């Protein structure tokens, strides 16, 4: 007897919905073995990972807070990914966005500018800066056929160093005891809090709005359709006269704009100033979020919540159970591995065949 995968004539709806559940079950099984082998009570570990972080109002607010940038960036990246435009540099575009938005906040300083003017200006500047950073790989790709995966990734390090120079040098807070950080933003440059006594801010609403807009673009707009065609079948796109250059520009700029917005959201939200590093790797984690969410805006919204829960659960397990951070990384990796593996069942079905004579 051997197991064989057979292509389904049409994708299975049942598998589409049950794949995440299957993956979760498989992860719990592996987790059970790992935690038992480490001599911990698996039930306590699961509790620390999945229940404790969201057992309080504050916990839920943190979940949504961390999900916001992931949701924003994932949605922007997915627009490009659907058209086979591989923007890997969202972390750099986020940094540039934070730098531009934060730059405006610092320039205004203590001057009395209403929030309703200042915050939109910061977000517009952030989106433009993210787009500018994403435009470099787009230009190199369309003019010189340079691979955007490499160029966008390399620009991440350029962006990080640029911000690092600014906060070590010209933008450093003179009263900050020589720490590499800018002044703390004035109150009018900070995002309003949604839930009192938590850190959840209006950035979350912005993220939801972007998800809704992206859904409208992908499903209903002709350009979204054309980009989908280009991703599924470049030959058919060329046949139908869909410009690959335009797709690269749109794909890169959409990702850059969303990452830039997320950067401003971090600077004007939980951080409130500019630091040498503005994100714990949201730009890279959002790539995973985009794929776990199957490049669909609603899926990405859910996947960003899952990723955020893994972030919080990892911290909670480290603090409460003194588990090494490597174990939390392993647990996250296992879940993503099973999620992507279970996706195979959407297009294929397993069949047991008699072994060859």
């Amino acid at each position, binding site marked *: 007897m051997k197991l064989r995968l057979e292509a389904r004539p049409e994708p299975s709806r049942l598998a589409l919905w049950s794949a995440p559940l299957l993956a979760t079950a498989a992860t719990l099984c592996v987790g059970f073995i790992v935690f038992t082998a480490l001599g911990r009570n698996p039930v306590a570990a699961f509790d620390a990972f999945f229940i404790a972080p969201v057992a309080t109002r504050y916990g839920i607010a943190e979940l949504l807070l961390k999900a916001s940038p992931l949701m924003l960036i994932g949605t922007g990246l997915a627009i490009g990914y659907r058209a086979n435009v591989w923007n890997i540099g969202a972390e750099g575009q986020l940094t540039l966005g934070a730098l531009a938005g934060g730059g405006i906040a610092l320039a205004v300083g203590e001057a009395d500018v209403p929030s309703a003017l200042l915050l939109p200006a910061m977000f517009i500047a952030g989106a433009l800066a993210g787009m500018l950073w994403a435009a470099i790989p787009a230009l190199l790709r369309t003019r010189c056929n340079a691979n955007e995966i490499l160029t966008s990734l390399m620009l991440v390090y350029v962006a990080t160093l640029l911000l690092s120079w600014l906060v070590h040098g010209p933008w450093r807070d003179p009263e900050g005891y020589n720490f590499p950080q800018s002044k703390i933003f004035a109150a009018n440059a900070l995002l309003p809090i949604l839930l009192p006594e938590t850190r959840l801010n209006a950035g979350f609403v912005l993220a939801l709005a972007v998800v809704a807009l992206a859904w409208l673009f992908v499903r209903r707009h002709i350009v979204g359709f054309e980009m989908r*065609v280009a991703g599924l079948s470049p030959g058919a796109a060329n046949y*139908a006269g869909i410009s690959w250059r335009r797709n690269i520009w749109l794909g890169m700029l959409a990702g850059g704009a969303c990452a830039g917005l997320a950067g401003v959201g971090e600077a004007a939200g939980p951080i409130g100033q500019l630091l040498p590093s503005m994100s714990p790797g949201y730009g890279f984690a959002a790539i995973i979020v985009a794929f776990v969410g199957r490049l669909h805006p609603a899926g990405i919204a859910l996947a960003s919540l899952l990723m955020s829960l893994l972030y919080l659960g990892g911290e909670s397990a480290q603090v409460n159970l003194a588990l090494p951070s490597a174990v939390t990384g392993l647990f996250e990796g296992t879940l993503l591995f099973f999620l992507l593996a279970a996706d195979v069942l959407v297009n294929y079905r397993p069949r047991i065949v008699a072994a*060859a004579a």
Partner: protein
Amino acid sequence: MADSPAVPRLALRGITKRYPGVLANDRVDLDVLPGEIHAVLGENGAGKSTLMKIIYGIAEPDAGEIRWEGEALHVANPARARKLGIGMVFQHFSLFETLTVADNIRLALERAQTRQLRQRIRDVSSRYGLPLQPARRIHTMSVGERQRVEIVRCLLQKPRLLIMDEPTSVLTPQAALRLFDTLRTLASEGCSILYISHKLDEIRTLCHRATVLRAGRVTGQCDPRRETTASLARMMIGGELPHTVHRAARVGAPALCVRALDVAPDDPFGTRLAGLSFDVCEGEIVGIAGVSGNGQKELLAALSGERTLARADAITLCGEPVASLDAFARRRRGLAFIPEDRLGRGAVPEMTLADNALLTARDHGHVARGFIRTRRVLAFARQTIAAFGVKASGPEAIARSLSGGNLQKFIVGREIGQRPKVLIAAQPTWGVDVGASAQIRQALLDLRERGVAVLVVSEELDELIEICDRLAVIAHGRLSPAKPVRETSAEEIGVLMAGATAHETAAAEALAQ
């Protein structure tokens, strides 16, 4: 003959193979005697290729028995098949273009067989009338020559059963006749040949016996030399061959004009187009014949706008220079194009029929201020499905789930449904069953009736002669002048397809008289 004729070289009993959603072979029995040229006849999708894949060890049957010289056995893979003495020449070649003939052949042989290879290639190729130079690189060779490499590669392994899958689809009529001589010589030496085709005339002249497949089942066995084309067709399609109605042309003004078209190939092994000029007028069908790989791909890409050119007036559409415009801009000016590849070019395999209808019909009121008018697109898709009798569950069916012929009908319907002024069709009936082919040809004739200019690029000479008003031949990237079909013959076109110029043809004709 070495073997006793009583024992079939190959006997299949009750071979059954099921693919998801389709029963490809249903209890197929087949006997091939030593030294016999045995035809397997059937429409596309009848299960011929699946059966051959089972014999050659590429696919495994779900049920049934294979007997080789009287002995039941299991053909696990093609290497095992070759060891038994089964050789196969595929419809689509598997050769490395950058390597030489000898290197390509060496790759397929076992080490012990590669000694003095070049000499042996020369010996075998001259013995069977398949001239080959072992040191030549594949990319410099025509399709017919490449097929010779594949055949010689099989022959060097001294096969006792040779499977030929639609071998003449890439040959000129003359080259096909030479191939038949080779196959007859082989058969007279005791080699059995399984000859797969849907061309009835060929089977009648070449084969000793024919097994007819329809929808995966054997529907008849006969001696094709004693049958008529019509009786074979009845066995193959279970009905009469459909006829097309061809009325006199009412030719109008030129709608598509090509002037001194020069195109350098994108692909290093492509063909350079050199100074092509021709017109297609309203209300006529112009055909371009030729063996594939002679510049058709480059010409079609330049005409459709998949490749744009710097000199805009190389191609004019209804008087407007369009060569520098992209494919969609040309469509807006009244061009429609049916490409030869359906999945991945003419249609997106993973998308629904409705989405695929929108693929090329992105104006025609299907989009308002950038947003898709879903209801109109669905209506257009439904209309196309109904008008062309496409067998599909509806506009939400995934393109990949349709059979090749049905998808082609949908694509033809979609292009015609956009009411073009000029329609270009590449291999419109390639891989399509007889009934659907006739329907597609009739649709092209109806368009001509309505005053549309139609250009058909095809390798199927019979089809071109049936529907075209004028016919030109492309060879080595050059185009012969288009001649009215009535003033030419299959023989003359065959000579042109082989690459001779019109001048040489005239000389050959003079000599013959």
